[in-house]
């Protein structure tokens, strides 16, 4: 186990390095710069600003400086928000994204498991077909369709929830539903498939033969084994929620990292873009690793090597 972790962490370092390098040069190859605006700056002013941020140096030197800074935990100053550092921008905006993402994941997984298990137990009944249909819809209706529709119905027509912002707890309801729906769909599908397979296995027959109550069989024996494959889905789910948050934060006007990323990419705020990429890359890598470890701990058939 320890050797496995060590090996994975050793792979993670060059991975991150690759991410930083690729993003750095891709961002720089983009036409335009952070100081372009409607009114052209006088050349000498522009030169001074560039010198201040070290953008006048050769690209290779800038790259080395940046990587050096990252190694010390310094992601540099924002080029658009002159008085802020990238670290402070991330610290300000990440909590919103984290809250949004975590609540969607938790809700998505718990409702998904429940629906999937119920569908499997009542296989080929109306309930099962209902859940399966819902799952297909949840997978096929993209977040940028659900979000405006939810706003249209529940915010504008019924006025139950605010259309955006993060001022009150209620403002999180619609965004979380939007993000959780596709997760519920996928999780319920996975749980249903796993559960059906497990219910046909020999040890469940044994449990039945022992005379255990149906409830005990389902909760203690079947469900445990059925949700195992879900752990592996943790990584992709996180990636999905992060991608979804790009859209959701924009539609609901929530100050999160996703919104900042898109804005900064368009405005060529190089350092902010790189900072956000690094944060998310670290997050996804760690979660994938965690998923693998948990899976191996729960399932003795998997050996980490």
């Amino acid at each position, binding site marked *: 186990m320890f050797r496995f972790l060590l090996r994975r962490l050793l*792979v993670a370092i*060059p991975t991150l390095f690759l*991410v930083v390098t690729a993003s750095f040069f891709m961002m720089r190859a983009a036409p335009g710069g952070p100081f372009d605006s409607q009114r052209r700056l006088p050349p000498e002013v522009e030169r001074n600003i560039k010198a201040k941020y070290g953008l006048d140096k050769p690209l290779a030197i800038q790259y080395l400086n940046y990587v050096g800074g990252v190694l010390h935990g310094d992601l540099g100053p924002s080029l658009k928000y002159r008085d802020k550092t990238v670290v402070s921008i991330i610290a300000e905006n990440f909590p919103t994204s984290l809250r949004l993402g975590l609540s969607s994941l938790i809700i998505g997984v718990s409702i998904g498991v429940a629906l999937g298990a119920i569908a499997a137990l009542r296989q080929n009944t109306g309930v099962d077909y209902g859940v399966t249909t819902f799952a297909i819809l949840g997978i096929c209706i993209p977040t*940028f369709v659900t*979000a405006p529709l939810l706003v249209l119905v529940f915010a504008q027509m019924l006025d139950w929830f605010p259309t955006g912002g993060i001022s009150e707890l209620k403002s999180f309801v619609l965004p979380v539903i939007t993000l959780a729906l596709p997760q519920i769909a996928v999780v319920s599908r996975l749980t249903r498939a796993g559960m059906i397979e497990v219910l046909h296995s020999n040890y469940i027959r044994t449990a039945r033969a022992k005379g255990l109550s149906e409830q005990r069989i389902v909760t203690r024996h079947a469900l445990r084994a059925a949700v195992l494959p879900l752990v592996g889905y943790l990584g992709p789910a996180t990636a999905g929620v992060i*991608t979804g948050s790009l859209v959701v934060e*924009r539609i609901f006007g929530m100050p999160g990292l996703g919104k900042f990323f*898109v804005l900064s990419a*368009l405005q060529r705020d190089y350092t902010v873009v790189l900072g956000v990429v690094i944060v998310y890359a670290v997050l*996804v890598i760690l979660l994938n690793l965690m998923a693998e470890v948990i899976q191996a701990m729960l399932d003795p058939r998997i050996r980490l090597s």
Partner: protein
Amino acid sequence: MTGAVFAPGSRKAAALMETARGRSLWDDALRRLSRNKAAIASLILLGFMVVAAIIGPHLTHFTYDHIDKVDVWTPPLTAHHLLGTDSLGRDLLARLLAGLGVSLEIGVVATIVSLVIGISWGAVAGYFGGWLDEVMMRFVDILYSLPFTFFVILLMVTFGRNFILMFVAIGFVQWLTMARIVRGQTVSLKQREFIEAARAVGLSGRAIIFRHIVPNLLGPVVIYVTLTIPDVILTESVLSFLGMGVQEPLTSLGTLISNGAQEMELAPWLLIFPSIVMVATLMAFNFIGDGLRDAIDPKER
């Protein structure tokens, strides 16, 4: 059949081939697929959409970029405008057909890009094995663990809103799963007798890969392709939604939905019709993909 040796080209050999072909994997698969109502309905719907996207734009009263400053925000079902108009008085039906075409086109082309990269990568890694396999698949693992949409966004920012580059950018991030599937299949195919025979005849590695292994990968690849196309369409739509996709006046389903969402209070039809077309397209592809999986690989069921 043991001991029965036929001269190649003899009538008996031909007859034997005929019966063998009669019960082939593909015939079985087709028969199973034709019994799947959802998949067949989806195939018909999709066929209709493709035809509509190709010839539809020639049949509408207006072109997708025809601006009419008077007939702004016309509701659906009015004279000349079956689905209404947008804020610039452009006919929604014409724009919807154009957008559907663009989305399908992106879906197909980007999927082909991902196919070419994924199949070559996976087949080479799986066939040669050893350290090459280790390095190549490790690379795929590494890329797999990255937040992809961010890369596509960076690519789009870098290369500008270039239509062709968008195909390439999306295809470029979609090939990983394909590479994994193909590698797995190749590793198991490699052990089979006919590959051994090909090697015994002295074919080069390249010839074996492209002449013998790749054609036998068709089943899983076809399934995955039908699931990749909707994924690509979705990715493009997310990009368009974020303002980095197809450029005006050209449009895609994602762009239409994005614009519709901004004006949904005034003109809900601008959001609703493109959304319906989008969801129908994605569902059709998903049903066909599921149907194909059940048909080609029944043990997955």
